[in-house]
């Protein structure tokens, strides 16, 4: 009994403050990451590098939000890209047609996304694995074809042309490349920090329980449907954020943003980077964009190269890069302790 009590005293204090410490640590890492990214323009005049980081921000937000569904909840959505497209189009249309300040359009777009995600999610999250995957895909195609056919409103297959107006707000001028770059970085870091908080909250552990064993979770009193719907909507919001960054970057929106290939790339990124760690999708994003950019420079058959890479990760490693690193590290630490 004394041994038990001793063990209890030992673990009680560190774990409790550990949770708080972890939060400070995450905020600290986020601040450092933002400082490093934001100071990049001071050291390099390379527009291509800054563009690369902006694209990483858009895709990184999208892919990490997809991992909230795939990795944390076990909901494999094949239609998550619809919210990326929805974000880009809603934001672009609001700015073009209403000319409101950018923060207002940003918030309004999130609200629109939440409404769509709630309706679509309410229909989808009841479905099991493959049915969930395919019905989300079906909704994606529905949104994509709506964009194509409603040409008077959305510009059809030409996309939203004529540029998105970017009025100055709070001294931030998003038509200035460096301003746009820093804003994208800020949105990425804030988005990641918020998603990290979701993943490490009590709700995040509810998601893990549902992923591992949804039936058991319901026998603990958890409303599985409601939890799934909640994470579906939350993930959609961050995907929509990614879409808005993309719309700002290209100053427009194109039907491809809402096409199923975006969802496919999201899944691909998660496979590349790994779904068992929070930053796996971020690593996957950088890898995919690097691959895309370098391979397309050397060959027009870049699809083949990407296919081979995907097969290597799926069949060879059977996990993403960061999964692999995390396992290797855990293994090394374990054997180190034994010695």
């Amino acid at each position, binding site marked *: 009994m004394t041994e038990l009590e001793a063990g209890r005293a030992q673990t009680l204090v560190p774990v409790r403050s550990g949770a708080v410490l972890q939060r400070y640590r995450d905020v600290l890492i986020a601040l450092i990451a933002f400082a490093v990214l934001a100071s990049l323009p001071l050291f390099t005049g390379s527009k291509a590098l800054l563009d690369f980081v902006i694209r990483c921000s858009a895709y990184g937000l999208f892919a990490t939000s997809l991992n909230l569904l795939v990795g944390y909840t076990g909901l494999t959505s094949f239609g998550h890209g619809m919210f990326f497209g929805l974000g880009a189009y809603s934001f672009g249309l609001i700015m073009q047609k209403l000319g409101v300040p950018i923060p207002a359009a940003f918030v309004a777009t999130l609200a629109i996304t939440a409404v769509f995600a709630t309706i679509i999610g309410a229909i989808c999250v009841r479905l099991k694995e493959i049915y969930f995957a395919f019905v989300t895909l079906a909704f994606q195609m529905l949104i994509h074809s709506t964009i194509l056919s409603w040409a008077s409103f959305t510009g059809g297959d030409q996309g939203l042309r004529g540029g998105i107006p970017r009025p100055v707000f709070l001294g931030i001028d998003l038509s200035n490349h460096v301003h746009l770059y820093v804003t994208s970085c800020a949105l990425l870091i804030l988005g990641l920090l918020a998603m990290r908080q979701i993943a490490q*909250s009590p709700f995040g552990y509810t998601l893990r329980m549902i992923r591992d*064993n949804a039936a058991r979770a319901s026998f603990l009193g*958890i409303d599985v449907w409601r939890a799934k719907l909640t994470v579906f909507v939350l993930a959609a919001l961050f995907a929509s954020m990614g879409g808005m960054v993309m719309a700002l970057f290209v100053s427009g929106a194109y039907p491809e943003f809402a096409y199923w290939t975006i969802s496919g790339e999201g899944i691909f990124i998660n496979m590349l980077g790994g779904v068992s760690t929070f930053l796996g999708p971020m690593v996957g994003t950088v890898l995919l964009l690097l691959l895309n950019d370098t391979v397309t420079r050397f060959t027009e058959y870049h699809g083949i190269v990407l296919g081979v890479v995907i097969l290597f990760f799926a069949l060879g490693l059977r996990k993403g890069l960061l999964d692999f690193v995390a396992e290797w590290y855990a293994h090394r630490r374990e054997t180190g302790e034994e010695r």
Partner: protein
Amino acid sequence: MTLPDNGARRTMLEIRNLAKSFGGVKATNDVSLDFPDGSLTAVIGPNGAGKSTFFNLITGALKPDSGQVLLDGVDLAGRSPPEIVRHGIGRAFQVASIFKSLTVEETMLAAVSADQRTSAVLHKRFPLPEARDRAEHVMELLGLASKRHRTAATLSHGDQKLLDIALALVLEPKVLLLDEPTAGMGPEERWRMIDKVRELWEIQKITVVFIEHDMDIVFKIAPKIVVLCYGRILATGTPDEIRNNSAVIDAYLGTEHAGAAA
């Protein structure tokens, strides 16, 4: 009454005319039973007797065709599993139903969080301090405290079963249903498990109902036994009454009842 006094004798769980059919098969056929507060009852019966169906009906995994499930006077028949759990009926499963990637400690803390209605909290970090004491208490009670940092998937079969029971127990249920707590265990491990169950029942003073195949175990520890056969109650009574009941001997025990059945 030969039942040991384990709290008040009012009825905690009352089953009235419970019925469920699958196609033409009556899996549960007009079952009525009383489980007094603080009682320990074994449910036995041949394979396909409807034991698990009976549990599934009580816990909401299946919806009964008719009948009532009264917990402390409140009818829960046909309600959803989360609702029934929140009213105070916890259950453990025949095949340990756990969260394979969570550690023992995380599992306990997350379960308490569910019970404390904080499982949807977004703005704080897991675990919440108020979940700790209860999680700690149940881990110690079941001897899982030393394995707190082990991932559930890496636990032994016996410990996984214990973790499953711990999951039910940590919700502080009024009634605990254990579906074959000793399933898949060796003879020695079985006794250790069943001693644990009995100990829990004595310490926690809750109403426990368990399904068990091993007749030695049932006759040794259960003050009251219910025999199910083809969805009906064949007999209820003390071990002695059941042992000498001719209908039970014909249907289930055979002439030499000792030893493991099924």
